[in-house]
């Protein structure tokens, strides 16, 4: 199966899931409307009438027709969300590049938020008290613009905008694997309960903020609208007390905001829920002629670096397969395949995993070179020679201080003396640049300084320190699963690998994990200063440390045969003893 057909097969499957999510979100609109109507039409003394009126309203033809625009907006929202999930994750080093790449997409998504917010408000106001229902109303025998209606429509738009800014503006949409993988029905119930309950609280702040804004600028907006539509101005919401003392309006606004926030939150959760369902993958590449071409192997899916979701799903599939305790499924990994009785499954999986580790570690090392604290620091900092004249207590103090500083990432205020300076021969001949070269260098430096002084240039066109490292760490979820799965496979191979297919690759696996661990240890001192990837870093580091420890402990007796090199062996033995 070619790379392109693998991508197409995976995207087709994910598209089906997105379609299911869209259908569910459309269905949820009617549930949310029912909840809203139950609140709005509440009658304590006539409960049966209350419920029957609500249900008849939901099932009426008006509702079905009036909700078509909202359903259309929800579908558009879903399509954009789906596209964002399946899009390639590109690294944008500067803010300018980020704007060029992401701004159109984000703007479109913002428009979808505003549309859903506006249409929800428009639909829901149709079921409210008559004062709130229409944009115009009769005041003193003349048409007036209804400030109540304007308030509620604005509330819808503001709620959509608020959700976009708080959830989607900076962050990319992420697939979330649940810690506890419940049955589908239970997941749905949990998501509904938590989202609805949470939104009731979360909507308080935007409601108050919008009310404040409406008090300040609502009059201007109403005036403009009345001018546009050539109707009279509504004076009911003028002044602070006009807005603040209207309990019913505030209640409607709060309810509407909570409905819009929960609607958007539910859509996000449904997409995440559907996309994180286990992906049907195969271990063995079936070569029979009649087999469907669309069967995707784990290895092929792991190789799809440009579809992040598929890579995550493949890694999770491998992790589940290995940790599920079913040795029969695992045995497929260790099988010898025809023709040639070669361990093709293991070979391809191991190569893919090692390539993932290697690429990630290389990129991480490159990115760490740009962090000023870590720039040029070797894997294990060499001890600087201590002069013979220093006393033992002074030496001990220096060692302890250095150890403390390294642990907490404290840099020395004085730049370290380079040994090269000491070793450099005194009578070395230097090339002296001619006057032309000197002038051009000075000119270049001054020009650079001048440009940097222009406000916003550095902000827009310079790569923030550690941005690449942050990007790599936030997208390290597939690696977390793969590392743990691979270490489990290695440990299980002791008892389940009858042909010894794993043992030839053990040194490479251990070395690549050890290399990654070394780099992450180096990064640990500055990880807290990097923006964003705090938990991603701890998850990855914890996974690498535990996986390496597991392999080293399981193969403790054979380590010296697997890793002949003295230094590496010593490091691994340290992992077992002190981690």
């Amino acid at each position, binding site marked *: 199966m070619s790379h392109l057909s693998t991508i197409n097969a995976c995207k087709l499957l994910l598209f089906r899931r997105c379609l299911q999510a869209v259908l569910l979100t459309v269905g949820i609109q009617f549930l949310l409307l029912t909840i809203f109507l139950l609140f709005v039409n509440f009658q304590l003394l006539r409960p049966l009438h209350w419920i029957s009126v609500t249900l008849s309203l939901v099932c009426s033809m008006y509702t079905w027709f009036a909700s078509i625009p909202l359903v259309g907006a929800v579908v558009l929202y879903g399509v954009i969300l789906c596209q964002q999930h399946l899009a390639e994750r590109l690294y944008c080093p500067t803010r300018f590049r980020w704007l060029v790449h992401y701004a159109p997409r984000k703007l479109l998504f913002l428009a979808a938020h505003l549309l859903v917010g506006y249409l929800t408000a428009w639909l829901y106001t149709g079921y409210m008290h008559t004062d709130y229902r229409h944009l115009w109303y009769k005041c003193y025998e003349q048409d007036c613009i209804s400030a109540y209606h304007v308030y509620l429509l604005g509330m819808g738009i503001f709620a959509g905008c608020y959700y976009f800014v708080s959830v989607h503006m900076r962050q990319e949409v992420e697939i979330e694997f649940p810690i506890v993988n419940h049955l589908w029905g239970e997941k749905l119930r*949990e998501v509904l309960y938590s989202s609805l309950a949470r939104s009731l609280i979360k909507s308080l702040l935007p409601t108050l903020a919008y009310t404040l804004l409406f008090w300040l600028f609502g009059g201007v907006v109403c005036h403009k609208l009345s001018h546009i539509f050539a109707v009279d101005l509504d004076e009911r919401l003028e002044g602070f007390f006009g807005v603040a003392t209207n309990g019913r309006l505030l209640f409607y606004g709060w309810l509407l905001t909570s409905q819009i926030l929960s609607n958007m939150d539910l859509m996000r959760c449904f997409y995440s829920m559907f996309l994180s369902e286990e992906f049907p993958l195969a271990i063995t590449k079936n070569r029979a002629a009649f087999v469907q071409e669309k069967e995707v192997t784990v290895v092929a899916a792991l190789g799809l670096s440009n579809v992040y979701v598929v890579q995550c799903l493949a890694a999770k599939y491998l992790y589940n397969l290995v*940790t599920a*305790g079913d040795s029969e499924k695992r045995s497929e990994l260790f099988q010898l395949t025809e023709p040639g009785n070669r361990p093709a499954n293991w070979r391809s999986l191991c190569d893919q995993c090692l390539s993932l580790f290697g690429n990630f570690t290389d990129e991480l090392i490159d990115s760490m070179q740009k962090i000023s604290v870590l720039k040029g620091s070797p894997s294990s900092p060499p001890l600087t020679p201590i002069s013979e004249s220093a006393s033992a207590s002074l030496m001990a103090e220096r060692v302890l201080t250095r150890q403390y500083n390294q642990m907490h990432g404290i840099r020395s205020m004085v730049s370290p003396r380079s040994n090269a300076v000491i070793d450099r021969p005194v009578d070395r001949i230097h090339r002296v640049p001619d006057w032309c070269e000197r002038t051009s260098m000075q000119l270049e430096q001054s020009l650079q300084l001048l440009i940097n002084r222009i406000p916003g240039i550095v902000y827009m066109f310079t790569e923030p320190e550690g941005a690449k490292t942050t990007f790599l760490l936030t997208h390290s979820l597939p690696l977390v699963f793969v590392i743990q799965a691979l270490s489990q496979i290695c440990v299980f191979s002791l008892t389940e690998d009858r042909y010894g297919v794993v043992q030839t690759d053990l040194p490479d696996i251990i070395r690549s994990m050890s290399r990654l661990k070394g780099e992450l240890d180096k990064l640990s001192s500055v990880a807290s200063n990097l923006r964003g990837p705090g938990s991603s870093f701890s998850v990855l580091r914890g996974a690498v440390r535990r996986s390496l420890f597991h392999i080293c402990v399981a193969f403790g007796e054979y380590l010296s045969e697997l890793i002949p090199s003295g230094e590496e062996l010593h490091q691994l033995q340290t992992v077992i003893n002190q981690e």
Partner: protein
Amino acid sequence: MAALSNLKQCPPFFALADPSFGANHIPELDNYPRIHVKGELHNSSAQRFYGGQGFVPVHEGVLKRIIRTFFEGGFWDSLAETRSEKTREQAPWLGKTGDYISQLLGIATTLKLKVLPHTHDLSAERIAQYVETRDWIDSDSTTQTLITCIAWRPLSVTEIVIGCRQGLCFWIVDNTMILGRTNSPSQFFKHPENLPITSMQWNKLGNLLATASIGDRSIIIWQPDSGLMEPLKRLGPPGSLLKWSPGNDWLFAGTVDRVFRVWNCHNHWTTERWTCGNGGHVQTACWSPCGRFLLFVSTTEPILYRLQFVQQTLLKSTKDEKEVLPIADLNACSADENRSLIGGPVQQLAWDPRGNYLVITFKSTNHIAVFRTFITKYDLQISPAYYLSGEIAAEHPSFVCFQPLYKEDERSIVTIAWSSGRIQYYAFD
């Protein structure tokens, strides 16, 4: 059904002239640390200097101190600070205000308890009913109060987690660092409802931690590295005891009532509900190393029960019935000529990682019973082996646990924490 009457006395470790002649002696035990908890507490080297002690306290105004306490420790800590002696001396009116607020809250709590009686306060006495450590209430600590459980993180030699009144405290015990040993935990997680943690268990891979609290009707599964958690709901009565099966397939959850549940972790966390004898709860439980058998004892009767998690028939029946079988009678009986008793209400069970020995401690008698176990694919056989005693008759085991095994040829070693503070290691065949 096996019984305690056939137990033989194991030659006491201390009674042998040379411990290396003992049946349980292995050379590795010589390298194990010799610990006496009570001695360690008074050891001057244990009282280390921490960085925080080097700072000189500054003068702080009363209001500033209360506000700081509020942001650091929350509402209840700030209320306690308001009512403290120091505050009363500096600003008596604040102390009185604190008293009034406290009284009002007391009235509200009383009313709440009348409406919701199951939410009553989780005192140390109440927690002591459900923990596996004998005489737990006598233990004390200052920074972390009401410590109920401690666990090393699997596949890691430096991380330890402590379950206490304050929540979960994660510590890094790194002996390679001379400086930088801190006096504060590396991570700290509070229960979402600010309840004490009464039981916890790591899964095999050390990436998930399950916790239970006797005030909470759900089990919480934490992912400490990412700082995320998810509750397992519909437990029934509040949870008191957790045991993860060795292969991560099942999670046993005992409650404060007769109900207990077993969750199938690999099948969408579906759950099976069981009940034990009237008026009691599951005191202790343990999984067989293969994860197919669960042994437990309730507080109502000293009978060891077995629950089997394996399909016995080739053709799966429509109703997959599992059965709780009594396998050992643990009623107290005379252990030796001195008529010292062994048995009675069970305190704790521990099964060795090889599946050959089961260790049982009791609430009211001081000996440790050791049973031999033989596990086959569909069956479990148990027979009495011998019993272990302390150095003196009054010494009783407070807690026992087996060391995890990573190598094939390792011997199972049980660590016994005696009430005297002595830590003993015992190697099995």
